[in-house]
């Protein structure tokens, strides 16, 4: 468990190096999500996307990437919305420890 001051007021990690699977669970819990296997699949995919493309995905490319990597049944926005309600790309990226977005999109 990281202390509260490791996060900013919006719950983003101040230092990305602090991220670990345990920290991901901590961020998710603060967002009201208990991470199961299906969540982890997406969290890991988001980290892979970030490594590959040096950016956090918007919703559309995330859906497409899920379809490519995990199969067509998971490449649907409804599937991601069920796991990460509201804004799956943003919420998932936060849990995956990707950089805080600048609200560009």
């Amino acid at each position, binding site marked *: 468990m990281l202390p509260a001051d490791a996060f900013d007021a919006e719950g983003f990690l101040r230092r990305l190096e602090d991220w670990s699977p345990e920290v991901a669970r901590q961020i998710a819990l603060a967002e009201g999500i208990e991470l199961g296997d299906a969540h982890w699949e997406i969290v890991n995919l988001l980290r892979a996307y970030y490594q590959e493309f*040096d950016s956090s*995905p*918007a919703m*559309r*490319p995330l859906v*497409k990437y899920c379809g490519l990597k995990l199969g067509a049944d998971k490449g649907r926005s409804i599937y991601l919305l069920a796991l990460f309600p509201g804004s799956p790309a943003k919420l998932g990226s936060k849990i995956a420890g990707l950089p805080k977005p600048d609200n560009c999109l």
Partner: protein
Amino acid sequence: MSDDETRSLLLVFRHSPYGEGLARAGVDLALACGAFEHPVSLLFAGAGVLQLCPRQDGNSLGLKDIGKQLASLPLYDIESVYFDAEAGTRYGVSPQDSPVPAEPLDAQALQRLLREHRQIISL
């Protein structure tokens, strides 16, 4: 000329990836167009063709890697990507090793592309 092309936006990238230029803002704009499902075509011209260099390493400069970001364009359904063939030759950039599939255009095809788009942002 299709209806899509008359409505769409052409982004002309003229700056090298890690100089003082606007390359980063251009890539952000292209991705934003994709995210908003706004039809867009990209043209790499002049020193802009250097953005298509393989094995570039922006991370070693403490910056985001433009090549890696361009590689995500197909996931944003941006597939109309072109480059000035003459500039490609001058800068030694060839399409087969580009981080994103891009079609070379000769001078005549370039003129046609510029005419076909309703609006052009050059940066």
